[in-house]
């Protein structure tokens, strides 16, 4: 009898545990931190620094969310995920938000049950080869052996591109970006393909980067952005407007340096609304009214984050290009914060 009743109790407990669901914001506040899914390590986007602290452009998004919710950018725990694991981790609730240079596609948005909250990096797939091969264009790659990461849109684009151009290739798939780079460095493959930002990131950490060339062709659109689960609109809104706040503050020239001064002195009603001096934008989201102020002072605006981790002067040395503000020649565009 003891055994039977133990099983009954265990079964009941499981039933109760699985049926209890609450809003993600409440859960996050209750546990006191955000569980944020990032890459297993991609220089510039998300990688632990020498002290083991996660740093990077995607990490800054997680920190911004933490600043917006807790008024403290460091209440984040990071879960490194491979390209293959990331979606299951988000679906199952293991992580609250995924900021892992993930391409926004229809089937991921719909079929996988996610909500992309915006685009934080406009990218496209490219190819990197050794200069010694003498290849000048991706159209010369017929018969090449290509190394890439499994579980990405990269695999699909690559197949499409080679088929469309009547070319053949051999693919070798690895789980993590580091394994792909290792195989490419050993010359097990001729070509390394991934999003161009990833190629620059990988080239920045290999020996003799000048011996490798990123080919000019961009064979796909890769709008990379953070995403959350379907079905919790409040949480989705918070993530979306965290990203938009980063972009909008740059657009309004609000930086970590001048935000305090602007909050005290500005007469510009748009800036007053963003910084929470007037209006109730923060309360509408269920956050503190100074949420955008916290983001920009504790993490920085979009441009500051970009130039700190990716821009000119960093090892990646990526130009803003498409990722410049809409009024500066790019397509970065935040809906109005009002």
């Amino acid at each position, binding site marked *: *009898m003891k*055994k*039977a009743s133990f*099983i*009954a109790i265990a*079964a009941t407990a*499981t*039933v109760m545990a*699985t*049926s209890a669901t609450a809003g993600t914001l409440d859960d996050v506040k209750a546990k006191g931190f955000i569980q944020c899914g990032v890459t297993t390590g991609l220089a510039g986007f998300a990688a632990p620094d020498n002290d083991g602290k996660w740093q990077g452009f995607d990490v800054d998004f997680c920190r911004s969310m933490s600043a917006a919710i807790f008024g403290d950018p460091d209440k984040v725990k990071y879960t490194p995920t491979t*390209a*293959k694991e990331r*979606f*299951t981790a988000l*679906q199952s609730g293991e992580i609250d938000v995924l900021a892992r240079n993930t391409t926004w596609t229809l*089937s*991921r948005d*719909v*079929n*996988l*049950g996610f909500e992309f909250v915006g685009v934080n990096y406009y990218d496209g797939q490219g190819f990197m080869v050794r200069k010694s*091969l003498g290849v000048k264009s991706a159209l*010369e*790659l*017929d*018969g*090449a*052996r290509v*190394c890439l990461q*499994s*579980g*990405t849109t990269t*695999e*699909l684009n*690559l*197949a*499409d591109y*080679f*088929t469309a151009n009547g070319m053949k*290739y*051999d*693919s*070798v*798939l*690895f*789980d993590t970006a580091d*394994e792909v780079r*290792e*195989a490419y460095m*050993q*010359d*097990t493959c*001729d070509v390394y393909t991934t999003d161009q930002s990833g190629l620059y990131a990988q080239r920045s950490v290999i020996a003799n980067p000048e011996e490798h060339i990123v080919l000019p062709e961009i064979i796909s659109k890769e709008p990379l952005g953070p995403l959350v*689960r*379907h*079905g919790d609109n409040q949480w989705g809104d918070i993530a979306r407007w965290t990203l938009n706040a980063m972009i909008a503050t740059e657009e309004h020239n609000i930086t970590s340096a001048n935000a305090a001064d602007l909050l005290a002195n500005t007469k510009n009603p748009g800036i007053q609304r963003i910084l929470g001096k007037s209006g109730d934008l923060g309360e509408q989201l269920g956050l503190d009214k100074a949420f955008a102020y916290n983001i920009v002072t504790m993490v920085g605006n979009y441009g500051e984050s970009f130039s700190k981790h990716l821009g000119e002067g960093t090892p990646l040395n990526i130009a803003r290009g498409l990722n410049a503000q809409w009024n500066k020649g790019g397509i970065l565009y935040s809906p109005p914060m009002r």
Partner: protein
Amino acid sequence: MTTDVQGLGAGDSKLRDPRVRAVIYQVLVIAIFVAFVAYVGHNTAVNLEKRGIASGFGFLSQPSGFGIGIVLLMDYSSQTSTHFDVLLIGIINTLAVSLSGIFLATIIGFVFGVLRLSKNWVVNKIAAVYIEVVRNIPLLVQLLFWYFAVLGVMPLVKNSFTLGESFLINNRGIYFPSIIPTSGFWLIPVAMLVAIVLWVAIGKWARKRQDLTGETFPVFWAGLGVFIALPVIAAFVMGLPYDIGSPTLGRFNISGGWALEPEFLALLIGLAVYTGAFIAEIVRSGINSVSHGQTEAAHSLGIRPSRTMRLVILPQALRVIVPPLTSQYLNLVKNSSLATAIGYADITAIFAGTSLNQTGQAIEVIGITMLFYLSISLIISMFMNWYNKRIALVER
């Protein structure tokens, strides 16, 4: 003398009967278990529905859209092939590496198991060092070692190591000439089949003759001779019905010919060497389990040492060897899923990896993958149990 047996008095209910109670408890436990499974299943379905995650097996007929590095026995194109084809390729690739791994590991294991018992100090120690080193390093580390540290540092494609004209070794694999069938090729495989049948027949005849006359016959060499001679004769009869494709250096890679990719080789060698060490220990313990008196008795009858091993020791040792050997085979098949670390396209890497990621249907994909491993393991177990029964000691 009418004292009741305790608990079985006329007025007591059937519930006091331990047999009845045992049945009731079992029914209860099963009912709770079934209810639990049904609840979890229902809960999963409802939650998938609520989050808008697709379910069902329709995805198997959708085009896969990605390329696969190693495709055997099938045609595959990223545009027309489906996720079901991906599953089949994954299964074929897993079976290819597992079965060749089992074959190789068994040979390595038996050789080193016997060497470990050698009276020659050097041979004995070499076997001991191999077994102790290999058994105590994690398999994943060994796979990375073979892939990156051994095969990865082979010569580059441009300066391949060549043997003759058409046998090349470089860090992208081992290349050798391929045989491209032309019309009339069918007779060669048929000849091979006939040769195998003949080989078995010769064996039966030789055994019968030995029983009658005591004379032995070199079955192995005769069989091998037939196995080589018949296809060669068939080839000449049909006027050499094949072309030879030799590997040639293209702009990037070697093309033409057959190739063993480094991903396959590293996984095969890694699995075989690793499992072989365990099998060697099993073989050694099996041989040790046969009393030394048996050897001495055989020797005193004038039986040569090699025959003693083959006819006296091994048949008895096998009874001890086979059951743990089975579990090593199962381990090898399951360990082949580490392929994903070194880029070999096994079922875990391409189906439970890429297909899962592209379709997002984790439950279905993982379910199918688990079912596959389970079936393969059960089939191997069944075969080994059958074999074990066949060689078991028949006692009266």
